Structures are given as structure tokens and as C-alpha cells.
């Protein structure tokens, strides 16, 4: 066959070559390095004036909490935010990338970004990587067509929902939503339900913990409430602070080395040029 007009770009794009090698190594018992996952409970719900997104703040590396207060609600556009669960690097990279693409698009069109634009950019990126980009997202925003809430799965499928949860704590949070959600809630009721759902994830799921972040998006306005609720304060903190007065530490031996002896003062000419 003659050379076709379609040429692959010389660099860039995901090379799947090493995937087979990795699978082979895994079968032989070689453990792949663990990555920083966001464990996570992320939620979103549509209320009467817009969308409320919520997330916990714990990031885990295997069994260890590596970040007690990370940010899982990512900026996409002034009117669109996105919560991310799964591998932290993947959620950060993919939301950053689509956020830049949206900004360029805003300059090109001169209009406010729409949520479906972000949705389409995200889902086509994730689909082309066939689920290897492990990012599960809850995308919410208000644009000229109204409030929208979507979930995006690592393989690229999406749902449009009035309320949604993702992450390891999603069942605990969904239990709260399914039993308490109503249509047309006010802002206070919405925030309260989002907090209850995230707290349910924090206290009933091991992969989620620490604090609650909330983001409220309405027409023309957004409020990013970082650490809206802190349900896990340090319980035992000394009110006097921690001071280590003299006499509290036992001195075993003392050795004094005067430093002056090692410094030789040479009287001499100033440095020549």
C-alpha cells in the first residue's frame, strides 16, 4: 500500500508498548510502585439556583495518608468546577489541560464556557486513553443554558444527573443523598446535605477523611468554600503550648569547642585587583 496521507505525529500521544511488559512483570510478582490516589468521597448536587460540589481532603499512598488537606475541587472555568477521584496526578493533569483548552476557546469565541464543552473535552481525552488515565470526575457548573452536573468515568462514559457521588466513599455518600435529596432545595439545605454526604464518606470510608470542601456555583457567581467544615480537629492540644524549659532534659556530658582558635586573623594588604 502506498503511503497514506495520514501521518502519525512524531512525538506525543500515549505509547501502549510498555503495557505488555508491565503486565508480564506483574505476573512474575514484581510490584509496581504505588501511586498517590485520592481515595475519596466527591459529590455534586443541583439545587434551585445552581450546583453545589463537595469533596473530602484526604490523599492516600497505599495505606498511608500522604496529604491530610489536599484540594480535590479543581478550577475549570469561572463558572465550572470539577471534583476528581482516582490517581491524583491524573485528575490534576486532565483538569489543568482541559481548563487551559477552555480558556483558549473562550478567547476564540468571546463567550462564557459551557459545561458540555468541558464534558466533551474530558470524555474524549479519557476515552482515547482507554481507561489508563485513572480519573473519575464530578463536573458541575452554571452556564447560559442553566445548571448542569455530570459524572465522568475513567473509560470515558458520562452521566447527567441531579445528584452524583464518586470515589471509594461514594456508597456512603449516596446513601445520604438517596434518603434525603429533594428537588428545588435552597442553598442552605443544599450545602447541609452535601456536608452530610461528605461526612458520611469521611467517617464510614477508610479512603476518605479530614475536612469538607464545598463549592457553590450559581448564575454569574461562584463561592469556593475551602475547609467549610473541619469535623476532625486535633483532640489533645496543650493550651500552654509546648515549651522545653531548662532542666527538663538530662545532660549526659558536655564538650565545649571554642571556635575562635580556628580563625586566624591575618593583618595584610587589601586584595589586589
Amino acid at each position: 500500500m502506498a503511503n497514506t496521507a495520514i501521518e502519525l505525529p512524531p512525538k506525543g500521544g500515549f505509547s501502549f508498548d510498555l503495557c505488555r511488559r508491565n503486565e508480564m512483570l506483574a505476573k512474575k510478582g514484581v510490584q509496581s510502585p504505588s501511586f498517590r490516589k485520592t481515595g475519596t468521597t466527591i459529590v455534586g448536587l443541583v439545587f434551585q439556583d445552581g450546583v453545589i460540589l463537595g469533596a473530602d481532603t484526604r490523599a492516600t499512598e497505599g495505606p498511608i495518608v500522604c496529604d491530610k488537606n489536599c484540594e480535590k475541587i479543581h478550577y475549570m472555568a469561572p463558572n465550572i468546577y470539577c471534583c476528581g477521584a482516582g490517581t491524583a496526578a491524573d485528575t490534576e493533569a486532565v483538569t489543568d489541560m482541559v481548563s487551559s483548552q477552555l480558556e483558549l476557546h473562550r478567547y476564540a469565541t468571546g463567550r462564557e464556557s459551557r459545561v458540555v464543552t468541558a464534558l466533551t473535552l474530558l470524555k474524549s481525552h479519557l476515552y482515547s486513553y482507554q481507561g489508563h488515565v485513572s480519573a473519575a470526575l464530578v463536573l458541575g457548573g452554571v452556564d447560559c443554558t442553566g445548571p448542569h452536573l455530570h459524572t465522568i468515568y475513567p473509560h470515558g462514559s458520562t452521566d447527567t444527573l441531579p445528584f452524583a457521588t464518586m470515589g471509594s466513599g461514594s456508597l456512603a455518600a449516596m446513601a445520604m443523598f438517596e434518603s434525603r435529596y429533594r428537588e428545588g432545595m435552597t442553598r442552605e439545605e443544599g450545602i447541609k446535605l452535601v456536608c452530610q454526604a461528605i461526612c458520611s464518606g469521611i467517617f464510614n470510608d477508610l479512603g476518605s477523611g479530614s475536612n469538607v470542601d464545598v463549592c457553590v456555583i450559581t448564575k454569574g457567581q461562584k463561592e469556593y468554600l475551602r475547609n467549610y467544615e473541619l469535623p476532625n480537629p486535633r483532640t489533645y492540644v496543650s493550651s500552654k503550648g509546648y515549651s522545653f524549659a531548662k532542666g527538663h532534659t538530662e545532660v549526659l556530658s558536655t564538650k565545649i569547642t571554642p571556635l575562635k582558635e580556628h580563625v586566624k586573623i591575618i593583618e595584610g594588604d587589601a586584595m589586589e585587583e
Partner: protein
Amino acid sequence: MLAAAQKDEKKDQALKNHVGHPQTGRDCPFTLLNSPISHTQYPYVTGTSVLGIKYKDGVLLASDMGGSYGSTLRYKSVQRLKPIGKHTLLGAGGEISDFQEIVRYLDELILYDNMWDDGNSLGPKEVHNYLNRLMYNRRNKFNPLWNTLVLGGVKNGQKYLGTVNMIGVHYEENHVATGFGNHLARPIFRDEWHEDMTFEEGVKLLEKCMLVLLYRDRSAVNKLQIAKITEEGATISEPYAIKTHWELEAFKNPATGAVGSW
């Protein structure tokens, strides 16, 4: 299937049913002679979650009546809650045939207890302990009874609610659940259960959780039973259905205003 040489042995041991296993030398039935010993099991017909809570007068258990055969909802009238003796109720998720076997063991246990005719009867703590031993010992022989059991009861004013699972993990709590109920119902219990709930409050809480399970557990069916056990005895309700709500505006036309998504 017997090897030719072993047919002679069979004649010698005409009335014996057991021989030494060729590989391990241990006592084993004929049927296992030419096979490596293996009791690996997969559950075939399974029941989904069972929920249990303590309330003012005793204990309430709830479960649906579904028996799934893999991904088919094959049986819709399986009673997964059974009264045991005078003081206990047993609910089970997991393999239905193993549950039936457990009920048979417990029937025998209660029968022997009654035959003593000493005015004493096995309470929920005793039955729970018996089930622990049963499940744990079966697990140690690599031949588990593939169930998660919820056991509730009242004896001498003392309320008891506990659970045992197929590997022998057991504990006692104010509210328990099996299977999916652990993920969907326990968070609600932890938030809304309180000491000394009335019967109506208890039923309302259980129904709320069963509704969430109905929405989100694929093996749930809308035909449930609530069982109550108090000092007076056990009652299991008639099967009934709960009302589901699908009238959310957003479900009527999910993609209006978001043309381009699906």
C-alpha cells in the same frame, strides 16, 4: 469412578464407606478417591443484604425475599428470616442452600435443648456462639458455609444483636448489616440510630435503608419482610413492597439544556 485395582479393595471393604486417600492417606469417602481433595465453593443461589437494629422492646430485622442465580433474579419468595426457638431471629445473606443447612443444624440444637425439659432455653447469645463455632470450624476445613448471618433476640430483658460471617468474623452491635447493607445502610444507621427507638421509628429507619438498597443494589427485589423479636416472642410480617419515587424532573429529560451529553 474407581480404578480397577481398587475394585478388589471395595469387595474387601464391602460395608465400609471409607478408604485411605491415595495422596494423603487420610480417611476419605470413595467419591473423593481419584480427585485431589477440594471443597472450593462458589455460591450459586444468593440472598442479598439483611439489616438489623435494636429498639426499645427488642430487635428488628429486615430483608427482601430475593434469591439471585448469578445475575438473574430467579427466586422472589425466599424467606431469609427465620425464628429460632423462643428467643431468637436469624437472618442470612449469601448461599441459600447453606442457610437452609444452618437452619437444620439449629432446629436440631433447639430440639435437643427442648428435650432436656429443664425450664431453660437457649438464648440469642448461646445460639450466636454455636453459630460462631460452626462457621469458624467449617472455614478451617476449607469448606465454608457461604453466608453472613444476623442474629437478634431478647432474653430476660436483655437485647442482643450480633453477626457472624463465612470466615468466622463475629461481633455484637446496636445495628448490623450484611453485604451491600454495610456500605449503604450502616452510614445511615450510624447517623440516625439512637437508643430506645419506638417500633414505628425503627420500621421507618429500616424501610428508609431498604429503599436506598432497592435503588442501588442490583440484586434487591421490592418485596420485603420485617421481623420483630421481643420478650413475648417473634413475629415475621407478611411480604410487602415499598414505594419508589421516579418523578424527579431531572429524570424526565436528562439531557435538555445539555445537548451534547447523553
